[in-house]
């Protein structure tokens, strides 16, 4: 859905705030620490993903307030590239947290799980930290993939949570075995269900990468003016046979073989929680060889392919949130990014400290808002 009106109550530094957004590009300008990123954070929460800054709910409640509340009104985009359809009824999404509890409603219907929000609102955030996606830790790349697949399918998120729960139990058990508080073969009790769950997770990730890779390659090709080829593969920490039905058994066998070392190290050494995204530029490992500029282009290609993938799965493009990232890109990449976003009727929210960091043409077609000390005012300067 595209957001028409966003209301924040006691969220971060906002006491009470309402803002009307336009379906295209919205720019929030203001000095640092005034609440620009907080606004983006509120929108990401509406998509059911946690905070993109990994903040806890209690931290997002305004100082000395008891709860926060985020309400968005919008319209679902009609398919076939039409902008929002005025014939479709408006949707209201509401998310609140207070007294250790969090609840969400869509058109008044209470949701059982937060990740169900992803069936109504989808977002893709691009922040300066994402520029280190290429050189960063495998965990960062896994999180990128997990976030994206979770939005594309709420089932994925639940399987992931399930797997992580098993992993915590298994690691706790390994610790106990090491300290001779449990028997070695007790580990098998967890392995069987965890192998099955892990195989499901792996299958989903591999399918996700298979859909993502060609999109990213195409975007990268245009970013590099056809000079470089980006290849993305899924790097499994486990040897996987071609037949997917055999994966659970293969995982079990591998874990059985590395049991001694796992007990020694008190942790589960292989599995979806240890995997990585392999990135290659013209056949060379981008994680070690890519230049600063190439890294940024890859990060950009990954993010934009995420936008395309979510758009194709959910039949509606996600809301794209660009958190102070424009100033980090050189004019060429900035131009590429905007061209790419202009191809579809995407709602974009941009934050920046200076309007000068943005192209003239963009400013003319955007709604511009000034952010100052938790207050927002529309600037007539924009389109």
């Amino acid at each position, binding site marked *: 859905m595209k957001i028409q009106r966003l209301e924040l109550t006691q969220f971060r530094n906002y006491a009470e705030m309402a803002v009307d957004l336009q379906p295209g590009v919205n720019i929030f300008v203001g000095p640092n620490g005034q609440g620009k990123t907080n606004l983006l954070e509120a929108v990401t929460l509406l998509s059911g993903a946690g905070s993109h800054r990994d903040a806890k709910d209690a931290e997002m409640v305004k100082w000395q307030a008891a709860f926060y509340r985020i309400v968005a009104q919008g319209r679902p985009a009609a398919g076939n590239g039409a902008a929002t359809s005025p014939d479709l009824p408006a949707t209201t999404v509401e998310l609140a947290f207070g007294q250790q509890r969090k609840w969400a409603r869509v058109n008044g219907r209470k949701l059982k799980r937060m990740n169900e929000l992803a069936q109504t609102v989808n977002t893709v955030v691009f922040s300066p930290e994402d520029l280190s996606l290429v050189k960063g830790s495998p965990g960062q790349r896994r999180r990128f993939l997990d976030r994206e697949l979770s939005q594309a399918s709420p*089932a994925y998120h*639940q399987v992931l949570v399930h797997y992580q*729960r098993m992993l*915590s*139990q298994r690691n*706790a058990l390994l610790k106990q075995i090491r300290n001779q*508080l449990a028997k070695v073969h007790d580990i098998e*009790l*967890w392995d069987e269900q965890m192998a099955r769950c892990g195989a499901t997770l792996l299958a989903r990730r591999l399918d996700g990468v298979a859909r993502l890779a060609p999109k990213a390659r195409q975007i990268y090709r245009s970013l590099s003016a056809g000079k470089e080829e980006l290849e993305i593969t899924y790097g499994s920490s486990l040897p996987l046979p071609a037949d997917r039905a055999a994966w659970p058994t293969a995982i079990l066998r591998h874990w059985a073989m590395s049991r001694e070392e796992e007990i020694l190290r008190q942790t589960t050494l292989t599995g979806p929680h240890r995997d990585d995204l392999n990135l290659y530029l013209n056949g060379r490992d981008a994680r070690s060889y890519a230049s600063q500029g190439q890294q940024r282009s890859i990060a950009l290609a990954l993010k934009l392919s995420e936008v395309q993938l979510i758009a194709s799965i959910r039949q509606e493009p996600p809301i794209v949130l660009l958190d102070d990232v424009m100033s980090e890109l050189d004019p060429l990449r900035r131009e590429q990014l905007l061209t790419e976003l202009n191809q579809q009727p995407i709602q974009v929210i941009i934050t920046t400290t200076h309007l000068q960091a943005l192209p003239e043409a963009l400013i003319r077609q955007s709604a511009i808002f000034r952010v100052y000390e938790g207050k927002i005012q529309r600037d007539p300067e924009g389109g």
Partner: protein
Amino acid sequence: MYYYAEPVGRLIEALNKLPGVGPKTAQRLAFHLLRVPRSEAVTLAKAIVDARDQTSDCSICGNMTDRDPCRICADEARDQAVICVVEDARDVVAIEKTREYHGLYHVLRGVLSPMEGIGPEQLRIRELVARLEGSPVQEVILATNPTVEGEATANYLARQIKAQGIKVTRIAHGLPIGGDLEYADQVTLWRAMEGRREL
């Protein structure tokens, strides 16, 4: 600052410790108890003490009971060849309410959870194995919850009990009857798909 008379404060504090009772509910309950006839308050207090004093765990199945062995274990009309293993005494109540099960029970009082330091020794597993030894039991139904921990516990029990040459079954998991696919929990739906069967 003066809020409550000291005994009232103590009552509120005690009520507040109960599961599901927050400070506001605790206050409401306390004021209610102060207003009802004294006999009603005494009845409640006595009921709490009696329930504590007059119940114990059944020495056979571990269920909560006012006599030992419990009414279910002592009932000869029940099928002595089947034992249903559950996590908690509350699960016995849930299954009994269906009136469809006529066998015996065994209450584990928990599930395996390495994170909380709960291993097989902390559960009533040894008692179960001893109980099955030389008994007429032909089938053990594992009815632990379909959680990560419940599954692991069921796996553990299955292994132990199969070694004794007894048939082990696991309750099915899937969609709730009368439910709507659209509103089903995603993992439930996924598991239900996994466990599909040919018609």
